[in-house]
């Protein structure tokens, strides 16, 4: 009510009866507008500087190079690749390399991490101490040091001709490990069978779900796991037999690696290159030491009473861990676990140091001949897409396991 009367000009200085320089809403918006303008100006001058510099110094730019031939070999690749392929395709090959390391690494690191994490809280003193030493050592040493170490070990393996051969099927040497690998005589039959296998898995899963529900509702034993699993196996086997009979060949054979040619190079099977081996070993061990701590904290976060109640109901220790403690611990474990998986994916960029052709490594090589700024943009987009995918999976999972009522 203390509104200052007076001329139109002094009236303007008031908003809702409060002087504008003291009105919270106005101050907030003024701050926002100012900070917005500052950031926009900064970012704009940043980009303006870059564009100017590109034009002044005649630095190549644009995305026209993407359709040209890359003409540089890529060490290990999971998609078929030749030097005559385009930049864009090479970039895709590198992205696939990163994604495969990420997926395999995440699976192995999670498995190892859970084992070490459970060992950390084992009642066995020797086991829990060993796990403690493992965790404290590997997570406090830079990943790069560990990668160099594993890469050195790989490089000290004997050369191809003197390499280790395990029962004529497995070749270990400084070029990598060659293992037998399924290989189809013809891709048509193989794809048909893979489709059949997928359908059988889905059928088995559906059956498993139906029978579980029935068992839960009626209490009659319905053996969901055995029935569902058997359905999948039998359906896939029948598909296999039919395709074998129809095409005269089994849909998949096994390609066994063997020395080839005068240099004894290993052909056939599947070769995991030395760089990939070192990268996976380093990433898995490093990340598992973090996951182990997450798992331990998660299990310890479940109240002691839960385990005690389970034990007093007659569940064996392992059964209590599996059915009572672990499902509850998962709620605590999953969010940091996802962020560790994302870290593993990002850490796979250290592959550049040991010669595995991941996104960063290939991107770095490309900048030597192609416009750097364009490649940076591609790299940023690729990594951001991967990290967003992980966050999405994490959020979806979180929503599913969230406590009801939270």
């Amino acid at each position, binding site marked *: 009510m203390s509104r200052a009367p007076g001329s139109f000009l002094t009236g303007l200085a008031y908003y809702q009866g409060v002087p504008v320089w003291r009105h919270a809403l106005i101050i907030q918006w003024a701050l926002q507008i100012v900070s917005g303008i500052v950031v926009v100006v900064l970012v704009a001058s940043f980009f303006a500087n870059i564009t100017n510099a590109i034009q002044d110094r005649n630095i190549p730019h644009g995305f026209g190079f993407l359709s040209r031939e890359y003409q540089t070999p890529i060490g290990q690749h999971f998609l078929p690749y030749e030097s005559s392929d385009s930049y864009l395709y090479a970039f895709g090959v590198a992205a696939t390399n990163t994604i495969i390391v990420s997926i395999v690494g995440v699976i192995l690191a999670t498995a190892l991490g859970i084992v070490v994490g459970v060992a950390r809280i084992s*009642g066995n003193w020797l086991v829990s101490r060993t796990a403690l030493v493992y965790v404290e050592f590997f997570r*406090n*040493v830079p990943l790069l*040091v560990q990668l160099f170490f594993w890469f050195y070990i790989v490089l000290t393996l004997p050369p191809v001709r003197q390499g280790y051969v395990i029962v004529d099927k497995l070749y270990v040497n400084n070029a990598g490990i060659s293992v037998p690998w399924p290989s189809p005589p013809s891709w048509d039959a193989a794809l048909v069978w893979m489709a059949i296998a997928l359908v059988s898995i889905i059928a088995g899963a559906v059956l498993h779900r139906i029978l579980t529900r029935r068992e839960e509702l009626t209490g009659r034993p319905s053996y969901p796991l055995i029935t569902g699993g058997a359905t999948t196996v039998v359906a896939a086997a029948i598909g296999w037999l039919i395709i074998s009979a129809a095409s005269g060949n089994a849909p998949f054979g096994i390609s066994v690696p063997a020395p080839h040619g005068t240099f004894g190079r290993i052909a056939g099977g599947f070769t995991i290159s030395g760089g990939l081996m070192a990268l996976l070993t380093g990433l898995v061990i490093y990340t598992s030491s973090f996951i182990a701590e997450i798992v331990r904290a998660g299990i310890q976060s479940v109240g002691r009473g839960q385990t005690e109640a389970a034990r007093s109901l007659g569940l064996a220790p392992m059964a209590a861990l599996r059915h009572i403690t672990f499902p509850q611990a998962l709620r605590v474990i999953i969010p940091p676990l996802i962020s560790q998986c994302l870290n593993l994916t990002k850490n796979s960029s250290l592959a550049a140091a040991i010669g595995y052709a991941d996104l960063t490594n290939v991107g770095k090589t490309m900048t030597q001949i192609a416009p750097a700024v364009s490649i940076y943009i591609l790299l940023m987009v690729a990594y951001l897409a991967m990290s*967003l995918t992980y966050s999405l999976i994490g959020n979806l999972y979180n929503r599913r396991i969230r406590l009801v009522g939270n």
Partner: protein
Amino acid sequence: MASGTDIPQTDSLPPPITERGIVGWVYANLFNSWYNTVLTFIFAAILVLTLWFGLGWIILESDWRVIATLGGNLIIGQYNIEKACPGQDCFWRPQVSLLLVSALLGMAWAISGDRVAKRIAIGVAVVSVAFAFLPYSLERMGLDVRLLLVANLPAVAAGWALARYTPLGSVRWIVILGVLAFLVTLVLLRGLPGVPGLQPVSVIYWGGLMLNLLLAVTGIALSLPIGIALALGRRSHLPVVKLLCVVFIEVFRGVPLITLLFMSQVLVPLAFPEDFPTNSLFRAGVVITLFSSAYMAENIRGGLQALHPGQAEAARALGLPGWQTTMLISMPQAIRNVIPAIVGQFISLFKDTTLVYIIGMLDVLEFGRAFIQGNVAEYLDGTPEFLLFIALVFWVFCYTMSYVSRRVEEHLGVGQR
């Protein structure tokens, strides 16, 4: 009743041997079930084998010449080579910086009165003094170098006395002096043109463990305030501020540090005016700090989220304005709750300083590797020894950090209130 007195009053029997003493402990902790017995034997076998071959390797086969040859260069990199520091010996400059650190540690010991601070201060001094007595000839390690190393012991004592007997003994002063010491270190290392004895040393020659520590200290000191600002921005109700903070955090968290570093090599010189000093040290410092503050922001945001809203409401009800509520009530509690995550980020940052190799800086790891690559014939076989040594150095620093963080948590009574 009378018959009761007939029973001789003997001491009760001791528990059986399997439940007391060492034997009882072994039974309870190693052989309490059949699978634990099996596990014990398996792990004991693994342990014995590891020790057998590990010790055998260390005693019989390992060759630590590469460490001995590199010596102090592992700590300062190329800082003292003829090209970096023509016609002079510049080794004393990093050493004086170390003395400043020792004095600060002594002060921290006196102020906190904690046994961990004491151990760290004494540990640094003892290790420095021990290095002074390495059995090198005087040509390899001069008398001045040795004396400056020995001086770390009195430096710790001086710092301790300073904090104990002068008004400088408070947390506020140690922070101020710490910042000052950091600036003095930078000036000392960089040099001042025109000052005799302090000729400028180009940052391209800065390297070794010194570089890792400098980058880590800079990153730690700057990423915490930036992270706090970003966390508050992300929780703010102001849409523009929130959007900017979210974009910044997600972009820096989504891209690997090594990718950001190698991008900075081309982008930063392009983005700044041409006369702006964008050397590799500056670039690495900026990128590492920004990268780390994005993670820091998320840690602090987690702490703020876990805080009960009643705290802020009570503060407002007492009449505290918004910024005081945040800075005096919410933020201290939020930070206290996420100390492990914050220190984990510090540790991570320190380990990540090894990645600067990608922009051609010779940190302790890359300096040694470059040396080995340059002398393959002689030193290539020493690679595992070298890597093991570097691993040990990093381990000591990182483990100390996590140990200190646990100690600080105990002091603050986290989990007890």
